[in-house]
């Protein structure tokens, strides 16, 4: 096992103009830690993983595994193992052959190979599939074989590139906990790339949020979720995303549409006010806190909770993540999401009075998007 350090790693792909995938990434993954790299498509997270794997050579910067600088070493000399999104099992080999391949390449004695392959297969519950070929396996089985192939070598670093994205939702949940258990049991330093923030929140010891090749925030899932360092992290983590409204600070009070928040430390000028959908509650449940009036547009009943989308007075602050975010509305209305407990009687077109629980309110600089303070008080 070993710690992994990415020191000012920059990766530029040739082109006109060159495409910068990583812009001086600094990251330290502790020995035995499971670090999640999360970010939208094309943010550079897979490139970072590939730089550690040796599949990409950084344009500049250092990659250190244990006490060795490895950025100039070929993949095979780095003692890393990787699980690919499409599993990349060798189609002409059986499951046994796939698991044994890396050990053979490292000249492990034959009896040891046999023992380790069978132990790993048993641990992953694929010991009955050893004679099958990849084309005869289901998605979940292929996934386990890919994991086994990587772990059987007992590598210093375990790399996973969106390993669950080809599975259906139910299997994904199951494999998520299996990966976590396996990682804990083996205790190998792991780097896990995903664009799914639910995976990031549930799996990682720490999460690194990346956008545009730049590290946005590194912290525990709780830190990243509760104290986002900037508006991008705030908008990216959480489903539905954090509501972000454009506001103005004046003499210690921030105004955004109907919303009034007291924040004495904020200098006068434009700001972004952020609050999560779960911070909203019907006004009668929380008297005296900042309020919003929402004109309900879409109601999604999920059984244990209700997601309500509607317009409020104000202007939405857009953070470029991807096309799935709601586009800013014309004029002086903004789209906001609210997560209400249990079933709700709310219908489309209703005017809903909502209270914003102040402890989860966030303020960001309108120009830079940086967090002004972890929380604002009303």
């Amino acid at each position: 096992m070993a710690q992994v350090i990415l020191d000012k790693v920059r990766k530029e792909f040739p082109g006109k103009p060159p495409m910068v995938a990583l812009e001086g990434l600094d990251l330290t993954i502790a020995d035995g830690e499971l670090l999640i790299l999360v970010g939208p498509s094309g943010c550079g997270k897979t490139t970072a993983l590939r730089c550690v794997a040796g599949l990409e050579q950084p344009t500049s910067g250092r990659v250190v595994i244990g006490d060795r600088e490895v950025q100039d070493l070929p993949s095979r000399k780095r003692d890393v193992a990787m699980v690919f999104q499409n599993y990349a099992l060798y189609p002409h080999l059986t499951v046994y052959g796939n698991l044994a391949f890396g050990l053979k390449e490292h000249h492990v004695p034959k009896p040891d190979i046999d023992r380790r392959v069978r132990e790993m297969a048993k641990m992953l519950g694929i010991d009955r599939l050893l004679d099958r070929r990849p084309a005869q396996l289901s998605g979940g089985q292929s996934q386990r074989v890919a994991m086994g192939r990587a772990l059987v070598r007992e590598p210093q670093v375990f790399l996973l590139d969106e390993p669950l994205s080809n599975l259906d939702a139910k299997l994904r949940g199951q494999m998520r906990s299996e990966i976590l258990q396996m990682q804990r049991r083996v205790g190998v330093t792991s780097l896990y790339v995903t664009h799914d923030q639910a995976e990031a929140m549930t799996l990682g010891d720490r999460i690194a949020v990346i956008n545009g090749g730049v590290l946005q925030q590194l912290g525990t899932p709780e830190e990243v979720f509760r104290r986002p360092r900037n508006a991008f992290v705030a908008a990216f983590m959480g489903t539905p995303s954090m509501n972000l409204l454009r506001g103005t600070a004046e003499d210690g009070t921030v105004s955004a549409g109907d919303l009034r928040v007291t924040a004495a430390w904020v200098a006068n000028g434009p700001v972004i006010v952020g609050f999560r959908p779960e911070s909203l509650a019907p006004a009668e449940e929380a008297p005296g806190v900042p309020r919003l009036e929402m004109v309900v547009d879409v109601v999604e009943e999920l059984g244990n909770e209700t997601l309500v989308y509607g317009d409020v007075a104000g202007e939405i602050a857009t953070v470029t993540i991807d096309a799935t975010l709601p586009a800013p509305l014309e004029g002086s209305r903004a789209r906001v999401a609210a997560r209400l407990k249990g079933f709700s009687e709310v219908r489309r077109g209703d005017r809903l009075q909502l209270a914003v629980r102040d402890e989860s309110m966030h303020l960001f600089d309108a120009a830079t998007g940086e967090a002004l303070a972890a929380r604002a008080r009303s």
Partner: protein
Amino acid sequence: MSYVAVERADTLGAAGVSGTAPLQGPETRRRRPSGWHLLLVPVALLMIFPFVWLIITSASTLAETRVFPPTLPAGFPVTWIQNLVHNYREAWTQAPFGRWVLNTTIVTFTVVIGNLAFCSLAGYALARLRFFGRTALFLVILATLMVPFQVVMIPVLLICKYLGMVDTLAALVVPNLVTPFGIFLLRQFFKTLPVEIEEAARIDGATRLGTLVKVLLPSMAAPLATVGIMTMLWSWNDFLWPLIAITSQDNMTLQLGLSSFVGSHVTNWPVLMAGTVMTQIPMLLIFLVAQRWFVQSFASSGVKG
């Protein structure tokens, strides 16, 4: 590009991955006669007629081949067999036939192995390695496919002469060790293989060459068979290049040797046809054994047989 996908499926099937027969199974062979057979049966007879006539001529006497209109030789079956034995013995003893068989086998075997090895390496490099001028180089190789052999044969002969290879088997082998067709076909197939498989092998500890030999090539049985079979057919049947490059009888290949049976004034047709049948026997045997690969090769390469 759809043919490549077909090949891929067949590769997996041939390797026993899919668990089903990649080509026609017993069900299709037992298909009931349809209207197509009214067309296919006469066409098949038309195709097989020259070969049957070849064998019949090799069972004739010289006099019987000169009759017009042509008739079947007399004395079936005893005289036929006597003529056959006589003509085949004549063909084998009149010329160093055994030597020609050996020469052709050496040339064909070496050319096939060379093509499989070098076309794989070149195809892999053109598909996967990033280097300056890769696309331009590929286009140049493709362009050579469009140049008829007759245009380049004299320059190639001059190069062979310069290298001292004229009238040696090396002249038949070296210029044909790698072909643009093979490079093109394998390069296209390499491009269809997921790059992650190769990356996985490299992370697992294999070198580039190791990855190629242990992971990629075993997944490519169908395109390798295509290149191998087509090279074999072409090399075994080649006549024009040996005609130019080889002068001594000991270095002749079968096809070239056969032409020595054709005289300026008189041609002993029964003996010539006996020799021709003998040159075809190895190819026929290979065809019978590897029939499905042949069909697959021509279907997948888009080249007519």
